[in-house]
């Protein structure tokens, strides 16, 4: 969707036209669903929350001042906040005190060739990311998958860009430590 199309969709939705709502949902629901399902780890719950996010966003759309790409950061911010709020409502998850399993990488690292080793590393990385806290996974998603700038991530997560950079650095370090421990 081009910037002009996005702006006209926003204006249309602000005027309460169904077509505007449909266009915006079709364009951004996948992105929002990706973020909230990463945080909630439950696809049914993620779809329900995605719909809630858009309901809230459309209800508040009159106050949104369209600046093209600003809409995606705005909707992500709503999604992030609602997912965090949902996570806070849930009871604390039970975390196993046993060592997480990274058998895939540990078992094959010594015997795999260069290409296979890279594949195993990714498998191992997937397992390591799965053991991060949900907000840490969300930061990774925003930075490495969505490719957003520190400024945008800071806006979405209500942190300062420095704090975002610091947290990402810690997360990377944590992942590296976990991988090296099991390699």
């Amino acid at each position: 969707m081009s910037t002009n199309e996005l702006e006209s969709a926003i204006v249309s939705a602000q005027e309460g036209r169904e077509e505007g709502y449909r266009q915006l949902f079709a364009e951004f629901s996948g992105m929002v669903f990706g973020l909230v399902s990463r945080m909630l780890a439950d696809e049914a719950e993620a779809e329900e929350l995605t719909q809630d996010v858009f309901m809230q966003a459309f209800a508040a759309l009159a106050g949104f001042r369209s600046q093209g790409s600003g809409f995606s950061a705005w909707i992500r911010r709503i999604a992030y906040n609602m997912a965090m709020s949902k996570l806070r409502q849930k009871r604390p998850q039970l975390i196993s005190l046993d060592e997480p399993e990274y058998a895939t990488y540990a078992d094959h690292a010594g015997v795999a060739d260069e290409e296979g080793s890279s594949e195993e590393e990714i498998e191992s990385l997937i397992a390591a990311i799965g053991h991060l806290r949900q907000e840490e996974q969300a930061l990774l998603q925003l930075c490495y998958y969505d490719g957003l700038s520190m400024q945008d991530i800071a806006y979405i997560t209500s942190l300062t860009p420095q704090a975002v950079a610091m947290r990402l650095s810690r997360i990377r370090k944590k992942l590296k430590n976990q991988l090296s421990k099991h390699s």
Partner: protein
Amino acid sequence: MESEKFNTQIAEALRRTQATPHDGMTERFMERLRREGLPQMGVTHAKPKHRHLVAWFSGVAAVAAVVVWVVLLPLKEDIPTPTGAIVQTVTMPAHSSEGVSASSPTMALANLQTPKKVYSSVRAGHSEKSAQTKILVSSEQSEHSENLVSELPLPSAPPTQDAVSKALEVSKQKTQEAEDPNALSYSPYERELMAHAEAMREVAELYTAEVVQEDRIAIRERDAIQSMRVERVADKDIIRKI
């Protein structure tokens, strides 16, 4: 270089575990949007009927909390002393209102335990008929003191000026002693009562939370029923057309 490789690996790991929405999510959302309309910002989405229900439950919870505090606060001032305590054995049913046998001011004390016991027994699924609560017993001392006073002979002559002034002095000393801040430390019985009051307050809070939760569940069920009804109506239309 290694850092870039690691970044790429993270991106690849995220890409592989990225969830994609199920087909038809847009249609499901549009249907919900048509059915519910947009929520009013800052206002609960409950329908007027439900708002009344919410208000009613909130009112009940607030009244319960006020009653707990109104009953407890006077008790703190009127805590019976070891010498003046009254014996009372109260039989309280856990689920029904029959068999409450207490008519003295200590009934208030007994009532303090009722909601908690009822609530806990309901929560635990217990079905015992009643629960007995015994409140501090020292009536023998009290009765003995009353007998001693009643057996004393009445004075034959009015008190002298000296006796009156002496009595006033003793009374003043006692008042000063009573105002001594060191004498304000709570007795174990008082502390027990205060702990009980705190526990009751927590029960009231828990009850309020449960009421709110139940209201949410009711709203969800109502929405589900409305949704099913819409589907049924749609099915009927289709059948008619066929």
